[in-house]
């Protein structure tokens, strides 16, 4: 088990290194000269030369990569050309908002997807099943950005049920920042008004972001449940007189959870991607909106920072899923 853990950990390190390599490469095939992008078209010759020297852009590319990696290992991601601040500081500021949104969306995914899938499998080919399947098909084909725009319009602007932008109302005083997770910070400060307000702001973006993955999860859960329910040991359990509910919860669900678990890592990663669109539309101050704004202004240190952070988070999620899998399924423990 321990050697398995270390092999997986090594793999994470390797993948993250690969991500640095890839992002560095992408940032350096930019046809636009970063010096001119930062200084403007009218920059004088010596200004450009000085800029290149200051940022090491006059050195050969492999040296630039080594310098970049050296800085990276000491926790320096460079400075954002747009915000004029260290990228690390920007990420610290914006990542908690994305984490909050992704976790909430993940809850939406689980709470909608798993019960819908189980229900559909138990009622195979009946009305419930058909409804779930059709909804899942539509949910998996709906563009997230349109759903966001539409719900913003209907639920928020027409019915005035929910706020559509940001994490708090303009007149709500934000709680002191401890974790960066607005709801948690409000709770820690015992500020109930801010807590409720932050939840109200979270509902719509989390629902929009979670719906697509919920649709995929419902399909997967249904298919897996159907497969498990047709297995011999289920028939044996039934024949032995285990009551229906016991069969489903104790025998079927436990075995169906394994293949679903492998999907969850990918879904969580998909949420991070979807967050780019959702955050942009809901003016949610997370790294998704940050990376969009940075990429628009060709701020490559910032884009590389976000890509690296997301790659790291993604690799860690997959590590956790792999370990959980090995823990739950003894057959692959030492594989």
């Amino acid at each position: 088990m321990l050697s398995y853990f270390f092999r997986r950990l090594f793999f994470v390190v390797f993948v993250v290194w690969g991500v640095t390599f890839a992002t560095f490469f992408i940032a350096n095939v930019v046809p636009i000269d970063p010096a001119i992008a930062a200084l403007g078209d009218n920059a004088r010759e010596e200004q450009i030369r000085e800029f290149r020297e200051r940022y090491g852009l006059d050195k050969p590319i492999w040296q630039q990569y080594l310098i970049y990696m050296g800085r990276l290992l000491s926790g320096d991601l460079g400075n954002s050309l747009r915000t004029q601040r260290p990228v690390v500081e920007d990420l610290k500021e914006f990542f908690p908002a994305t984490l909050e949104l992704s976790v909430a969306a993940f809850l939406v995914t689980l709470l909608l997807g798993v019960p819908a899938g189980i229900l559909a499998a138990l009622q195979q080919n009946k009305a419930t099943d058909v409804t779930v399947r059709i909804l899942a098909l539509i949910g998996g084909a709906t563009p997230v950005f349109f759903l966001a725009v539409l719900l913003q319009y209907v639920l928020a602007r027409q019915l005035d049920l929910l706020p559509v932008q940001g994490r708090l109302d303009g007149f709500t005083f934000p709680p002191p920042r401890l974790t960066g997770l607005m709801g948690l910070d409000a709770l820690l400060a015992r500020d109930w008004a801010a807590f409720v307000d932050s939840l109200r702001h979270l509902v719509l973006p989390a629902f929009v972001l979670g719906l697509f993955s919920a649709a995929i999860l419902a399909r997967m859960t249904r298919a897996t449940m159907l497969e498990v329910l047709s297995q011999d040991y289920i028939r044996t359990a039934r024949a032995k007189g285990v009551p229906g509910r016991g069969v489903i919860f104790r025998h079927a669900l436990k075995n169906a959870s394994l293949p679903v678990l492998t999907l969850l890592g990918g879904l969580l990663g998909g949420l991070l991607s979807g967050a780019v669109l959702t955050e942009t539309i809901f003016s949610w101050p997370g790294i998704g909106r940050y990376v969009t704004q940075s990429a628009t202004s060709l701020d490559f240190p910032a884009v590389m920072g976000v890509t690296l952070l997301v790659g790291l988070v993604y690799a860690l999620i997959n590590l956790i899923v792999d370990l959980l899998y090995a823990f739950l399924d003894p057959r692959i423990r030492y594989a």
Partner: protein
Amino acid sequence: MAAVVPAGRPSRPLRRFLRNPGGLIGLFLLVLLVLVALLAPVIAPDPISQNIAQRLQPPSAEHWLGTDQLGRDVWARVAHGAGISLRVGFGVVILAVLIGVAVGLLAGTLGGGWDNLLMRVTDIFFAFPSLILAMAIAAALGPNLNNTIIAVALVSWPIYARLVRANVLALREREFVEAARALGSSQGRLMLRHLLPNTLTPVFVQASFDVGGAILTAAGLSFIGFGAQPPTPEWGAMVSETRSYIAEAIWAPTAPAMGILLTVLAFNLLGDALRDVLDPRGRD
């Protein structure tokens, strides 16, 4: 994963497909879409020409799906957008399949150090959240439709590499491959004549799903400004341009969004049906 095409009369998969309602709906939608895309210049007016006097008009006999904030005919833009979406979807998947199949085939056949190297590279690309990487690539290359295709393809190929490699590893142990090798078949011939044809079925099934996914990702990229640029009638860009007018003209963002939804739905239904018909293991 032994996904050799099951033996049987060749007409059986077709007959099974024809009995699959989801697949038929998907096929119908796809045919409709291709027809709209091909006939757009005939059945719809100019998608670019503006008429400010006619802005934000509701659907009517003259403007079937109304007009947008610049007085452009929404139906014209949706119809011309069909071809763009299909081109993006197929372009991405063809490119991704070419890269992925080549990598997977080489890794599976050569084995050893090559296998390790190629699959670790695949893992790295697999570890990237697709939209963020595609955005970085699109920003670096410059935002336009062809670069969107390249960007999305670059994040879509790893699944094919894994699929093909897993199949090749399973196939290598089979008698016909051993026989071919014993008869002195060269490595290249073995790959192209024996291994490749037997891995195409799962690749084909996966590809039919991915066309829809690629269209969604590309539309998302265009929505945030990293894909097709105005005035191109690309569906994602259209939703983005018209979203602030949703209160006055709900048809303007809804029509292109329905285009995306129906197209993705068509490919997902086709993918489901093809998997049921061609890959007997994945069936319910």
